[in-house]
């Protein structure tokens, strides 16, 4: 039993967010599940490469000091504002969460009139209980990550709920920023996105922090529901300070002819474990799952994925690429599951790793489980170093060795970046890669 993670603790979070009783009951159920489940020991296949023994959750305070609302965007501290809007970031919705509190949340007024709902989760649970109740938790959780997810569901703070009504298409991205201000905190952001029939939305989720003097714990839970014909893009950019423990459990339930495109970009945290699952539930559902990570120093980056084809004529395409410096390590493990009824499905799964130092390692593991007999599945993983011939060629054209490697790495990532349809997100990724390349290599 832990001492800090109690019903009293989340009661304080619930009280300050004025959440309805039914939501607090959900927290109670999650806490019971959390208490009943054991921590992974490292013996489980899903946790063999990520050691949780050094994680002492009691070292982190799940009820951080409260931050007051900020009425005007221009009054938000510049580093946080920069994370929220970048250089050119016009938005249809914007939510800024500082530690456990959403301090600024806005939706374009015209969208409110069309019935779009965008609010902190606890608030939406009060104002639109039917919408939130129907969605929350419906996508379920992968068994392997249930312990962490239960912790998030019990102690979530701030968080965001987005509902886009039938046929409404948002032109600009909706953005949330989760910002941690100091060491010793535990923050559990929760995002629920519901796109009704034919709705369209792009959601950018940015995790960032100041340089922190010590560790923090962040465990996010993301649920995406794309109803018939809806199109949802969800980009998660994780750029915590390198003292963070980061967990993410993301589930997308994709209906008939709906499309969900996701991006999991990992630059920060000391230990990052991200699970992205797509459940292709309706005929003709499509999922694109992109991943991009750049490890340095002793970062540990663990990506998990599930492409679960439950209906015929469903398509999934997973492409994760990562570069590793210093003694950083990447683990990728993904399952493509094609159910009995999922004939004519098409699944692709690829993970490419580029080792830029002697001390870095990558362990990719793809799995296929196919129960149907008329499908197309491809998978491929690789671990390699920059092609010496290409580097030599570039040097013969006048680039020095470092510059040649930088060009090579940028080219390596470009394939993923080119598939991101929001120009400013592409620019953000390119800048983050430049920053990583500029870091001194510590092997």
């Amino acid at each position, binding site marked *: 039993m832990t001492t800090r993670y109690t019903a009293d603790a989340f009661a304080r979070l619930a009280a300050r967010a004025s959440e309805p009783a039914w939501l607090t009951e959900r927290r109670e159920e999650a806490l019971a599940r959390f208490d009943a489940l054991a921590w992974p020991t490292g013996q489980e296949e899903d946790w063999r490469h990520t050691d949780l023994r050094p994680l002492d959750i009691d070292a982190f305070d799940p009820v951080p000091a409260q931050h007051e609302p900020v009425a005007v965007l221009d009054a938000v501290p510049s580093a946080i504002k920069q994370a929220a809007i970048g250089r*050119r970031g016009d938005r249809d919705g914007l939510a800024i969460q500082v530690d456990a509190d959403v301090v600024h949340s806005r939706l374009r007024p015209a969208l409110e009139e069309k019935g779009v709902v965008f609010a902190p989760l606890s608030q939406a649970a009060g104002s639109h209980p039917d919408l939130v109740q129907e969605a929350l938790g419906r996508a379920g959780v992968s068994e392997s990550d249930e312990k962490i997810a239960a912790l998030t569901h019990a102690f979530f703070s701030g968080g965001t709920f987005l509902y886009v009504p039938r046929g409404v298409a948002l032109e600009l991205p909706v953005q949330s920023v989760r910002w941690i201000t100091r060491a010793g905190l535990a923050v559990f952001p929760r995002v629920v996105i519901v796109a009704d029939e034919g709705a369209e939305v792009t959601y950018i989720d940015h995790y960032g922090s100041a340089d922190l003097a010590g560790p923090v714990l962040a465990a996010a839970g993301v649920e995406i529901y794309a109803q018939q014909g809806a199109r949802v893009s969800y980009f998660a950019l994780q750029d915590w300070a390198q003292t963070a423990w980061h967990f993410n459990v993301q589930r997308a339930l994709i209906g008939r002819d709906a499309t969900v495109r996701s991006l999991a970009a990992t630059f920060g945290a000391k230990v990052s474990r991200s699970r992205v699952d797509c459940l292709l539930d309706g005929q003709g559902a499509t999922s694109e799952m992109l991943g991009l990570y750049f490890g340095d120093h002793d970062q540990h980056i663990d990506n998990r994925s599930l492409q679960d084809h439950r209906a015929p004529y469903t398509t999934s395409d997973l492409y994760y690429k990562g570069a590793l410096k210093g003694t950083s390590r990447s683990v990728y493990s993904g399952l493509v599951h094609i159910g009995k009824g999922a004939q004519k499905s098409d699944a692709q799964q690829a993970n490419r790793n580029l080792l830029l130092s002697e001390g870095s390692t990558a362990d990719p593991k793809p799995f296929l489980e196919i129960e149907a007999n008329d499908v197309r599945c491809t998978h491929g993983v690789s671990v390699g170093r920059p092609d010496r011939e290409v580097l030599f060629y570039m040097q013969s054209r006048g680039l020095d060795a470092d510059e040649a490697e930088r060009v090579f790495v940028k080219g390596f990532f470009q394939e993923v970046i080119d598939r991101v349809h929001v120009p400013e997100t592409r620019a953000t990724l390119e800048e983050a890669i430049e920053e990583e390349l500029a870091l001194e290599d510590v092997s």
Partner: protein
Amino acid sequence: MRVRVSRVDELEPGMATRVILDGTAVAVFNIEGSFYAIGDTCTHEEASLSDGFIDEDTVECPKHGAVFHIPTGEVRALPATRPEPVYRTRVEGNELFVEDHDG
């Protein structure tokens, strides 16, 4: 730099007009007898705030509904997220002028 806007009595309370100051479009407002000037082009997309809807001390862009606070240029409603620059207004006799911060 400075540029003449109009005669003071030509810009009535609740109204706005547009002038060019050193190549930049500036929207000038009269709010209950006080004059304010901010960038005229919405920071979201090409649209003229001087054609917008004035509500007390805010102006709503006619194109996508972004709202700016006239005295400070701050964003008050999405989709815009960046503030408008603020310019000084000056009344000399019956003449209204706008100037940038270099005077």
